[in-house]
């Protein structure tokens, strides 16, 4: 239930593994961690949402903030998500047209690796 955040480096990428509930109560901690990553020099960030049980508008707002921040820094930002209920949330908010969303960390990394401009989904 509680938010869990784990970071790992995969080649050029920083993968942030998020678990638990990302809501109005925990989203500030996610925002903080993403800001830290970018401030610490990460330019290719992948957020893995596979273990997220709940995501609300505040969590989505934090993810958009990270996208903007990386875009401004000429980096890449991708999401990993394959759960249908969560994908529906992105569709309903039209944020599936804003974020590059990948079915796996591997796909996220191979697609956006080193390609600093490809912040928009190719579809």
């Amino acid at each position, binding site marked *: 239930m509680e938010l869990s955040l784990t970071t790992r480096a995969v080649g050029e990428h920083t993968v942030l593994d998020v678990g638990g*509930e990302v*809501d*109005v*109560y925990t989203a500030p901690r996610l925002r903080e961690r993403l800001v830290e990553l970018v401030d610490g020099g990460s330019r290719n960030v992948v957020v893995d949402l596979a273990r997220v049980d*709940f995501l*609300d*508008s*505040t969590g*989505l*707002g934090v993810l*958009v*903030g990270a*996208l*903007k921040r990386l*875009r401004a820094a000429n980096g890449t930002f991708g999401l990993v998500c394959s759960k249908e*209920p969560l994908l529906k*949330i992105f569709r*309903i*908010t*039209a*944020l599936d*047209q*804003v974020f590059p969303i990948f079915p796996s960390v591997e796909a996220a990394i191979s697609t956006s690796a080193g390609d600093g401009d490809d912040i928009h989904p190719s579809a």
Partner: protein
Amino acid sequence: MATVRLSFSPAPVHVRTARLVGVAVARRAGVAEELLDEVRLAIGEACTRAVALHRQYGLPDLVMVEMSDSDSYTVRVVDRAPIEASVGLAKLPPDELADESLTDEALTTGVGFALLAGFVDDLQVRPVDDGAGTEVRMVWPVHRR
């Protein structure tokens, strides 16, 4: 079944309590299992919005969530903020969502409203009858056992 009313100080942590209660009561009222994720999300969004408004206007008043079931499961989320605040409820087009000029708050509000409108078929947003405030009213069908 009748009525369960939850009132809470406008703090993010209590939005979790509201989701918990809203889903527990929905389940007992006979709302279909496959709708419970939407009930959880919608009640959360309505309460998040109310808490944000109370904090923005510095209102210590409690946010109120009322759940009732008769022919259907009806949830009302009531805030006490000035009515003009509800004007913020407008769906944003995709090309504006990641726009630099959009503040984080405006984005979150717009996304929250998109989720409410997208997940709740029977949704009403209207001024409360007495004094300042807005009521978000959501209705889900129940299957009687």
